[in-house]
């Protein structure tokens, strides 16, 4: 079965650079969530989109922005990167309509290292 796809899987950036993370949800899923997991921490919710509109916002810094496109994929744009942005970034998708269980499926994550 198709899963959530994230790219790139690994990314190394310098301080003050920008980064773009991409997420391709499971087909027919209409909701995308972004989470950030720092070293030794539990995942923290950043932002979510439903039908291309922002649906909820968590602890996302102002330096970050995100959007969901017409094909339902989502991109997380991160500017003026700081050392503390080094983390594992997960994307998850779900279907509000309900294709069975109401559950979020997580992608493999993008590991970002800021030097």
């Amino acid at each position, binding site marked *: 079965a198709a899963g959530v796809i994230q790219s790139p899987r690994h990314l190394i950036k310098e301080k003050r650079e920008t980064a773009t993370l991409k997420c391709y949800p499971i087909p027919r899923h209409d909701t995308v*969530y972004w*989470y950030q997991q720092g070293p030794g921490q539990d995942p923290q919710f950043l932002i979510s989109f439903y039908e291309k509109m922002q*649906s909820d916002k968590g602890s996302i810094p102002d330096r970050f922005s995100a959007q969901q496109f017409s094909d339902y994929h989502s991109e997380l744009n991160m500017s003026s990167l700081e050392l503390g942005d080094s983390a594992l970034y997960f994307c998850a998708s779900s279907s509000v309509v309900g294709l069975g*269980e*109401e559950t979020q499926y*997580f992608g*493999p*994550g993008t590991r970002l290292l800021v030097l």
Partner: protein
Amino acid sequence: GIQVEQSPPDLILQEGANSTLRCNFSDSVNNLQWFHQNPWGQLINLFYIPSGTKQNGRLSATTVATERYSLLYISSSQTTDSGVYFCAVEIGYGQNFVFGPGTRLSVLP
């Protein structure tokens, strides 16, 4: 906001032993899921279990929604069970997860 607690924070087992992991949450939830994060960082969905009991091989889970807790049972543990187990709750339909701090499990050969 909702608080999610997990216990124990760390657990060391000998291969073949059984264990119970607990998740307490402070408010009513729409959804609860258990995840296993392997040493490579991948989050594996174990159970979607807002209430009731489910079993999958050596793993089973029970959620008592009225008492706001969930239990994950691991029987005959194997070294590949090592990693961090997260409980995550969703307070509303289609809303984000709030994760617990996790239980770090180490299974020794």
